């Protein structure tokens, strides 16, 4: 059964539901039989979950807001450019036109052994994600090592976003980073332990005046591909710089050392070296299609694309 509740209270009444936005992440999983298509509850007809609006000192974005709308929203473009850029970099135009913010954040982690048809997978024992007890990527790993490829998450985290969600009969609000951490952990054993959470909204405080921020995605092709790496960076006068990187580990990575160097006005080459070193420590690379581990490490330098954001930033001597 598919359900299309028109209010949040209706939506929360379904037992054992799988909540869906545009369903673009789930559909291939259904077709590959890694997820059962049952009790799907669409959140797209709940008006308040589709809104993008000012709220308090910042904005509220409903979980059912469409990525194409986020990418084109004046409010987001003006105040949260990294998010607009990230929403605009997801998958293909056709997918951005129906995929939602909530769906993107709660997307399944991916891996070349998991995102395959049932027939293809039948020659290997089931992995952690499909109810087994092995990770084909790193056979001695005690947990699933699939990567989390969300572009939107990387951008939201650079703005310290909070998530509002419904869980166990109550509405909660927590840092998005915590929600993603819980989602990614549970998603590593998705067939056994599914996180029964209905994400409703994301909040971000408006960045201080003069702060600059941006998002960069590296994929081999312009469209459709998941990122091979992505970065979001904010830097400016009144709060410390922040650098987040996605598609390098089972959840997004906050690159604190590199951000500190940015705050201290280090030269480009030093920042690149620091970013590469920090990612070498934190990243948990796996085997991906068309990219070798050595090339993946080269991608750590692609943060270069965001360094021009610093041009207006003050040098360390001024601090």
């Amino acid at each position: 059964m598919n359900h299309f509740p028109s209010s949040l209270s209706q939506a929360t009444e379904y037992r054992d539901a799988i909540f869906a936005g545009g369903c673009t992440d789930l559909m291939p999983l259904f077709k590959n039989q890694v997820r059962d298509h049952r009790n799907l509850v669409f959140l797209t007809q709940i008006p308040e979950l589709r809104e993008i609006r000012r709220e308090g000192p910042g904005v509220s974005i409903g979980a059912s807001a469409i990525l194409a709308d986020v990418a084109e929203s004046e409010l987001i473009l003006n105040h949260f450019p990294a998010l607009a850029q990230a929403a605009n970099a997801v998958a293909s135009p056709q997918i951005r036109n129906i995929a939602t913010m909530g769906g993107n954040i709660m997307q399944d982690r991916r891996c070349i052994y998991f995102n395959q048809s049932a027939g293809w997978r039948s020659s290997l024992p089931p992995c952690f994600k499909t109810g087994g007890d092995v990770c084909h990527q790193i056979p001695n790993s005690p947990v699933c090592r699939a990567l989390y490829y969300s572009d939107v998450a990387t951008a939201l985290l650079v703005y310290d976003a909070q998530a509002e969600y419904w869980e166990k009969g109550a509405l909660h609000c927590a840092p998005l980073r915590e929600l993603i951490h819980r989602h990614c952990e549970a998603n590593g054993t998705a067939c056994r332990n599914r996180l029964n959470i209905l994400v409703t909204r994301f909040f971000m405080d408006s960045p201080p005046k003069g702060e600059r921020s941006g998002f960069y995605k590296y994929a081999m092709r312009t469209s459709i591909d998941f990122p091979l790496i992505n970065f979001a960076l904010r830097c400016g006068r009144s709060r410390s710089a922040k650098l987040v990187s996605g598609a390098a580990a089972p959840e997004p990575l906050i690159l604190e050392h590199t951000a500190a160097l940015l705050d201290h006005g280090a030269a480009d080459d030093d920042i690149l070296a620091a970013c590469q070193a920090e990612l070498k420590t934190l990243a948990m690379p796996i085997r991906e299609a068309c990219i070798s581990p050595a090339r993946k490490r080269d991608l750590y330098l692609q943060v270069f694309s965001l360094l021009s954001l610093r041009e207006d930033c003050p040098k360390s001597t001024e601090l």
Partner: protein
Amino acid sequence: MTITVRLNHELRTFNTDAQETLLHLIREKARLTGTKCGCDLGECGACTVILDGRAVNSCCVLAEQVNGREVETIEGIGTLEHPHPLQQAFMDAGAIQCGFCTPGMILSAKALLDHTPHPSRADIQKAMSGNLCRCTGYTKIIEAVELAAERMEKERG
């Protein structure tokens, strides 16, 4: 479940089940076979249709998701006798080879031109980047969209 869809400007009612895709409904129930299935995974764009003014991959949309909404397929935008300017431009520019990606390409282009009547070349490349073509190398497809935009501008006067 019974759903109502405004399909190619006509209100239609279909019986569907929870797992039926919009692509399946269009091809098998409405018997509109201009919408093609190239991968069934949302990766090639051959099944592109316009849903409430926006291009989507019909293979990754459930039929029930479009209940009460408006869907446009290649059959709805022009005919052999009265083609849409994009259809004419794809022909004139030589943008059609095997033709299997063509309906999806044209619908992606139409969604773009309806929204952005004067697209730059980069806008066009981006709007068409969810549609794979293996024959043309895309050159003449991009030219066709430019040609159609030009002609539509002239028509508008």
